[in-house]
């Protein structure tokens, strides 16, 4: 596994509560899953993907967790065109 350099912007994942530690009165489906946190920051030391890593967030707080993503990015979009919307408010419908 290649090493990720110190200072790289990454996202880590931490299990905050295991299913047993979670709040009571959860719906059945939620109850089976752990409560998981993700947060991004700069690696404070060299680390490996999938292994434990320590980061410093943009405001300077430190977290330890499993290194999930290198250079986490946003790729959300306008989605695939929904043809049902196209004609609304046009002559075709007036």
């Amino acid at each position, binding site marked *: 596994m290649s090493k990720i350099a110190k200072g790289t912007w990454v996202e880590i994942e931490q299990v*905050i*509560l295991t299913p047993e*530690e*979670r*709040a009571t009165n*959860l*719906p059945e*489906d*939620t109850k089976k*899953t*752990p*409560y*998981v*946190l*993700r*947060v*991004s*920051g700069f690696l404070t030391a060299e680390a490996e993907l999938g292994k434990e890593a320590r980061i410093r*967030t*943009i*405001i*300077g*707080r430190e977290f330890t967790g499993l290194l999930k993503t290198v250079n986490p990015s*946003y790729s*959300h*979009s*306008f*989605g*695939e*065109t*929904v043809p*049902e*919307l196209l004609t*609304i*408010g*046009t002559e075709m*419908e007036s």
Partner: protein
Amino acid sequence: MSGRDTSYAAVMARKNEIMKASLGIDYEEFIQSPIAFDYDRMMRETGFSLEDIVRIQSETKVGNTPLYELRRLTEAVRRISPPGKGARILLKDEAANASGSFKARRASISAYQAALKGYAGMIAATSGNYGAAVASQAAQRGLKCIIVQEVYDSRGVGQPEIVEKGRACEAYGAEVIKLTVGPELFYMLLRTLEETGFFNASLYTPFGIRGVETLGVEIAEQVRSRYGKDPDAVVITHAGGGNLTGTARGLQIANSSQTRIVACSVDLSGLHMASDHDFNRKSFTTGHTGFGVPFATWPDRVDVPRNAARSLRYMDEYHLVTQGEVFYITELLTKLEGIERGPAGNTSLTAAVTLARQMDADQIVVVQETEYTGAGKHHNSQLSFARQNGIEVRRGDPRENVPGKSIVIPERLDQVWGKEQDMDRLRISYLKNAARALPVAQWSENDIRFLAADVKKDAAWVQQQAAQLEA
């Protein structure tokens, strides 16, 4: 504060001390019983006058937003209305605030207060526009910011709208703690407040609500100066109740007392708000019944000891609309009025269409907010995501909408009807919740007075309902 027990039970048990330290408000001063508290005094004692709030907000690019008349939409509504009907529809363009929504009003006073009291930063737990608003206001006051956000289901899939809201928070320099589905969001908020000693920029403090009062005042002043009369109705997208409470209080301050206060939410009945499976089967992340109804019928279910947002105290009517109707109206706004705005802010516009059809043509209905739109936070993104998640999307009669299963987009404007909720049922539901907090037999005269004010009824009505609850 490392070394303290951070288990769920231990942190929740420290709730009161964490709250007190992170807010600088001692709620004990106002609390009178498990039900009643001195609401008016709590709101007064924020220490800010309306003039102060206007000044604070103008420093950080908040307020004084445009009010537009939606001429082509009004014409379209008049074409499907009986003769003489079809009120003028006005739109308050709150997307013009810093960070793109009315939530900047709410965050602005908290940020000012946090800086004034010497806090190093502020924290909010929210998946909505409020996160970006807090981050943007914190940036302008030189404060650090943490947003605690419910983003993903257990597969790690997040709704495009929430993902975009997280992006916006990070863009304004906030640390964003992204969590999977669950009510433990509150636990994470407490833990983070305790670790950092930051200010709790809760949505439900008096600061948050007083910040929205300027919105109501601006509406009254703008409508009067342009049309020489008060608005006949103001429609407000309703979730936690702060938007409605603050706006209605502002209208009262401006003496616009005859204006009908109309709440509107997207009907998501049947979907469980804490369900991992249902999480990505709803196409609205706020402004829906999953928040609107529980918060109306028991406001004190929040992250502060007493909620300053008390919607039933101010609400005259409560309308529900379907997801499909809101998407239709969002598209119509774009095509007829030439402005693109986010779908959540268009929930109240949808109800306004229904109201306008029944109101006289010389009357005025105001839609009191818009929100920004863009990748992720766009009705096409939401519908496309719904389709990918197995939700049926089609044109047809919106009454055939089934939350979590199908989104039926109206074929014509005259199919946009929504439905009205029975206000007394909501009020009685509130009283039942109050009876859980304190048995009816123990309600004092002061409790009854408080409850009456909180449901916009008189004491005799509350007593009559109380007798039936006891029976």
